């Protein structure tokens, strides 16, 4: 399985990248870690005419805290994000999610931005961005813009990023101090894509659920926020999760594959939700 031919250019500056993107549009693909892109290229399922290698744009790899906001650069390697003290403190959900991402060798090269830009339906980081209400920072020759995570993930491998744009960073606003993360994915082997996963945050104020964010991944063609389940739990003490689980029937339209049916995925989503609620009420 050898990749189809392509032209390759190493980008030395961000401006050079933006110019190339403007000139070539959808004929070009950005390669950072390549851990998702290169398998697709080797399988000839992805056939960019031009590969723009951004690994030298090291300024994009910074992980920093700006006031109340955690900024994770698109080029930050998963391994770096996993080790980052700032991430552990400001976004423990991401720290909890990353050990589930593939395996060490993949995490050493794969990047935060790559995972978010690829938007695989079973990927962990897009789900975390949705929960954390991240703002994705995009740049093009026309300038910079921000897209809310809720508007960013449009479908299977489809995001709001235009062909002439590059993702620069995810800006993650601080959560309330008492927000409790929950991350769980059901995968048949360590590092596999999830059959169903739940990335979530909740505050339990005075024994009652508040500010719930429930995002399921691996169930539909994109991470999806279960608003109905959130509403059913809001203000309750969590002892009866049945209504929330039932609400998943309207929140989710699961997609099946030859090994795991849509019904199984719907069922697993309910199990994850019940376990999350139990986790929060015990905490």
């Amino acid at each position, binding site marked *: 399985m050898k*990749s189809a031919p392509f032209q*390759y250019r190493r980008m030395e500056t961000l401006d050079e990248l933006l110019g190339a993107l403007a000139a070539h549009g959808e004929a070009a693909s950005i390669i950072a870690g*390549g851990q998702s892109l*290169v398998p697709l290229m080797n399988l000839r399922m992805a056939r960019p005419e031009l590969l723009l290698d951004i*690994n030298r744009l090291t300024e994009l790899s910074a992980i920093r805290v700006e006031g109340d906001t955690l900024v994770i650069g698109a080029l930050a390697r998963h391994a770096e994000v996993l080790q980052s003290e700032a991430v552990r403190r400001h976004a423990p959900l991401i720290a909890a999610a990353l050990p589930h991402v593939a*395996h060490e060798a993949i995490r050493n090269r794969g990047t935060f931005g790559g995972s978010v830009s690829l938007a695989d339906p079973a990927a962990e980081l897009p789900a975390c961005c949705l929960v954390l209400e991240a703002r994705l920072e995009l740049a093009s020759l026309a300038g910079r813009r921000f897209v809310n995570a809720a508007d960013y993930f449009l479908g299977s491998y489809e995001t709001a990023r235009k062909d002439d744009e590059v993702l620069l960073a995810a800006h993650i606003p601080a959560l309330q101090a008492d927000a409790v993360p929950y991350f769980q994915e059901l995968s048949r082997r*360590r590092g596999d894509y999830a059959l169903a996963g739940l990335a979530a945050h909740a505050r339990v104020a005075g024994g009652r659920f508040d500010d719930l964010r429930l995002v399921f991944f691996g169930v539909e063609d994109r991470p999806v926020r279960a608003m109905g389940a959130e509403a059913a739990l809001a203000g309750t003490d969590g002892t009866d999760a049945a209504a929330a689980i039932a609400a998943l029937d309207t929140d989710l339209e699961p997609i099946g594959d030859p090994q795991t049916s849509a019904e199984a995925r719907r069922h697993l989503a309910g199990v994850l939700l019940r376990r999350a609620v139990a986790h929060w009420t015990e905490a």
Partner: protein
Amino acid sequence: MEDALDIELTVNGARVARRVPVRRNLVDFLRQDLGLTGSHVGCEHGACGACTVVVDGAVVRGCLMFAVQADGAVVETIEGASESGRLKPLQDAFHARAALQCGFCTPGMLLTAAALLAREAAPDRATIREALSGNFCRCTGYQAIVDAIETVVNKDGGND
């Protein structure tokens, strides 16, 4: 004519300069251009670990990097790691415990195990299994490999 680029990198301690097709991946470059056939190709989609090499100090999948991306990098393959002697305790333990059979996954297993031991002084069996979870072995069923790594862990812990 296919697009090709000149690259310069360090492989197993030696400076190497070659002109390489841009779509040739790193493990194919190491095997075909440099004759370093100790790294193996098992899937070309990053799932099996047979192509594991060390780039700039980190274990990576050689099939998921294009050789042109390794320009300026420091690369170590099983040959270099073996000749440097840094794998000897693991190799001795693997040999004694019969932690390999056909040997195809073995270079990847050794480099991955060495990376684990470099960052964790005393991993337990579950941690060892997790660290190996991205390296496919069809022959051993993994237990002997875990045993061999555990032997090295215990030796280090006991004597240093």
